[in-house]
């Protein structure tokens, strides 16, 4: 089996939202734009790259505890302090019951998210059939951008994606700190030039239009 990009997703609200509202809004938008999965919920995986998921909620939760005392902090806000809270909300909304990854970092985390998804989708046990690979920013701006990858022996519409050695023919790799900026550049190059790549210490994710 191989992994192929099936759909591109790009969501940006018109205004910056508080963390809890932003995640809920993004999850509802994702549900509309994912266009359905072609496999059962247990064979869906999520691979989310983020640097700031849970950060603002942690600060807000502790500010609330300082203000009212630790014995009176709002318990409903606590789950949102965890860095994996965004992927948890999305997986619940989209019924993703397979692997649930949150990778912390910038462009390196985007690379790692793709690498993990390609690994899972290509595995011989075929336990993962579709993977939602997302980059997420939630602090200063709320943005979510990424791809649905699908496992197949036949090439679907968008093109091919693979993990590879260094790609010499393209421009130098983009090393943005923000995961959404890195993902956005990756996807824009793919759409405009027909091929793109993202690189980390361990290799290259290479994507080419069909």
């Amino acid at each position, binding site marked *: 089996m191989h992994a192929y990009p099936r759909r591109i997703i790009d969501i940006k609200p018109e205004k910056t939202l508080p963390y809890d509202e932003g995640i809920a809004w993004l999850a509802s938008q994702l549900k509309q734009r994912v266009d359905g999965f072609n496999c059962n*919920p*247990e064979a869906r995986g999520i691979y989310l790259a*983020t*640097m*700031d*998921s*849970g*950060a603002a909620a*942690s*600060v*807000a*939760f*502790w*500010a609330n*505890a*300082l203000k009212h*005392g*630790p*014995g*009176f*902090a*709002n*318990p409903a806000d*606590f*789950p949102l*302090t*965890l*860095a*994996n*809270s965004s*992927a*948890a*909300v999305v*997986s*619940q909304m*989209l*019924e*993703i*019951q*397979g*692997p*649930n*990854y*949150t*990778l*912390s*970092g*910038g462009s*390196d*985390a985007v690379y790692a998210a793709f690498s*993990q998804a390609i*690994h899972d989708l290509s595995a011989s*046990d075929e*336990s993962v059939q579709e993977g939602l690979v997302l980059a997420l920013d939630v*602090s200063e701006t709320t943005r979510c951008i990424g791809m649905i990858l699908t496992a197949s022996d036949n090439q679907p519409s968008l093109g091919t994606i693979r993990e590879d050695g260094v790609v010499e023919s393209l421009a130098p790799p983009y090393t943005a*700190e923000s995961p959404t900026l890195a993902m956005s550049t990756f996807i824009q190059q793919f759409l405009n030039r027909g091929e793109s790549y993202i690189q*980390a*210490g*361990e*290799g290259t994710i290479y994507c080419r239009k069909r």
Partner: protein
Amino acid sequence: MNVKVLVTGVGILTPLGDSPDRLWQALIKGQTAARAWPDLEAEGFRITTACRIDDSARPDPKRGRKLAVRAASMAVRHADLPLDGKIALFVGATMGESVAYEQAAEGKPLDLAQASIMAYPHAIQQALNIQGPQRAYATACAAGNYALGAGIAAIRSGKANAAIAGGVEPFSRIAMTGFSRSRAMAGDCCRPFDRDRSGMQLGEAAAFLVLESEARAYRRNVEPLACVESLGLSCDAYHPTAPLPDGQGMSRAMQQALYKAGIDATEVDWICAHGSGTQASDNAEAKAIERLFPHQPHVSGYKGAIGHSLGAATAVEAVITALALRHRVLPPTTNFRNADPEFTLNIVQQAETQPSLRWALNCGYAFGGLNSALLMGAV
């Protein structure tokens, strides 16, 4: 045929022992690190009992990185690992440097590059001067298992000659408050799977394992502790904090780990359980184990001894599992007194020698419905 991946070294810092040997001796005796902390009482915490490493009262925004570097260095020394070539590094955690977020709430600037989980592998890589793939897994209380699963994959794919994988979680006032306010914490002590269990107790820890292929380990003439075979993952997609009550998601993770390894459920001798000590989680886990393992393998839980160290927990328990497989001894479930009539688990109550111990599952679950099961074996 999969490359066999071996554990060739472990490093660990816990409130019950600052080395694998000291922790092991304390676990065998059924000791606990839980105690009341005057600083928490002075700060107005309703629950002030926790399992903390002694120097944790002084807030330090670099504490997680310091613990991680010490534990990873210990694992490297234990394995006598040459730090040349590609050494992969995989670190799991829940929150990052909690003190940095706490100080940001008081008005100090927050630098995410220093506070978030990605700071951990960077700090270790810098301290050990190693090169190779590195990743930071923000997968809450299952994160250590995720890191170890990545380690298995890196060795098998040839991306790395060796992998250092584990987890870290410094003591967090945010978590202490959050779990307490969610009424998930035990007032007296944490009793996994006990009839009278009333909740979890917060801990802190760092634990790392050095993984190498069997061929390389024998070439280097190192004596392995155990093998790490496969990781099973699933997500309940059910509730932000509560597990699926019937434990189906947990079962799926366990089943997947066994399927990947081609091991039958009846071959599992022991389960190092998540055993958080909460009613909901222990109930669901017991149902999952009962459903999948009717032959009643031994089951233990160690959070009564060392507390719940969140993102480090599954790495800590993987170290305990490796030591148990090496010694062929199962440490007791600290604080377990009375069986719960709701389930029929074969809980380890006294240290038990098990000469035929072969396969063990190290299980960990997390907020967000994340389920993980790591299959480990004796060598």
